[in-house]
């Protein structure tokens, strides 16, 4: 599920586990924010939250999450359909990591 070439695999296993824990917590919050702001049509706030989550996801090597966050940075893609895919990708990632 995670890209083995991602930066997270260049740190020790112990630290990796703690970073994954931090990621899952922050990503859950970020997706909540993205969902709320998407419904409110606050495009810039969605873009910023998606941008931040994209960076974290790329660092972790969560490619699907990274791609979907990139889509959510684009105001034209900030819709419930992309949001649904993002939430599904996160649930699947969470399952594979815990």
């Amino acid at each position, binding site marked *: 599920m995670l890209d083995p*070439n*991602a*930066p*997270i695999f*260049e*740190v*020790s296993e112990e*630290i990796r586990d*703690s*970073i994954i824990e*931090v*990621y899952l917590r*922050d990503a859950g919050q970020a997706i909540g924010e993205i969902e709320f702001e998407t419904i409110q049509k606050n495009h810039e706030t969605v873009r*910023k939250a998606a*941008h*931040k989550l*994209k*960076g*974290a996801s*790329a*660092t*972790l*090597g969560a490619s699907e999450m990274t791609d979907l966050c990139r889509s959510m940075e684009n105001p034209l893609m900030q819709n419930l359909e992309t949001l649904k895919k993002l939430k599904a990708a996160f649930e699947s990632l969470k399952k594979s990591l815990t």
Partner: protein
Amino acid sequence: MHCLIVDDDNTSRKVIESFVEQTEDLDLAGSFENPKEALQFLKKNPVDVILVDIEMPEMNGFDMVDSLQGNPSVIFITGKEKYAVEAFDKNAIDYLVKPVKYDRFVNALEKVQLPDAVGDAKFIFVKSGSVLVKLDIYDIDYVESIGDYIGVHVGGKRYVVHTTMKEAEQKLPNDQFCRIHRSFIINFGRINQIEENTVSVVEKVLPISRTYRKNLMKRMNTF
């Protein structure tokens, strides 16, 4: 070498912290989510290099770098390539796009040039023709950029030296000298007057650029 990390994303920050830990001769002086807190920390804890994100909510990385006192090297670590030109305008020594791999991180750090031991130095030698002239650092009025050279102005005389402004900035003590423009570094003690966009140094009127004005004003002792 002491470094500081500033990134509002916890995952990226923690990975960079871990990279710092596994790098020889590199110490983590601090790691901050908030640039304003980082600036406060830096006032009392100068570092050699700052690893800073650009898009952050309370203050972006460029504004933070504009507010820096002293002259640490800056490496931007960001998710977008589009800020690269502006980053290098801010004298960044490197620009890393996330996700950052460890070898790229080390490669960026290798570009950090630590200043020579100028802390207590009172003199600097400049080459004038075929001789080296010893100058009291505090006698320097200002330094100007002249293409691939710099002009060191001392009491009406100008010494032309083959070096960069960045290197000159590193060699001059930052409690006494301040960059005011891409092309000028001035001695605080030689300032006569500051106007909106200019400063009078000895008898010369020099321009202050928008980028450096904030830092200059912050460092002036004003009523």
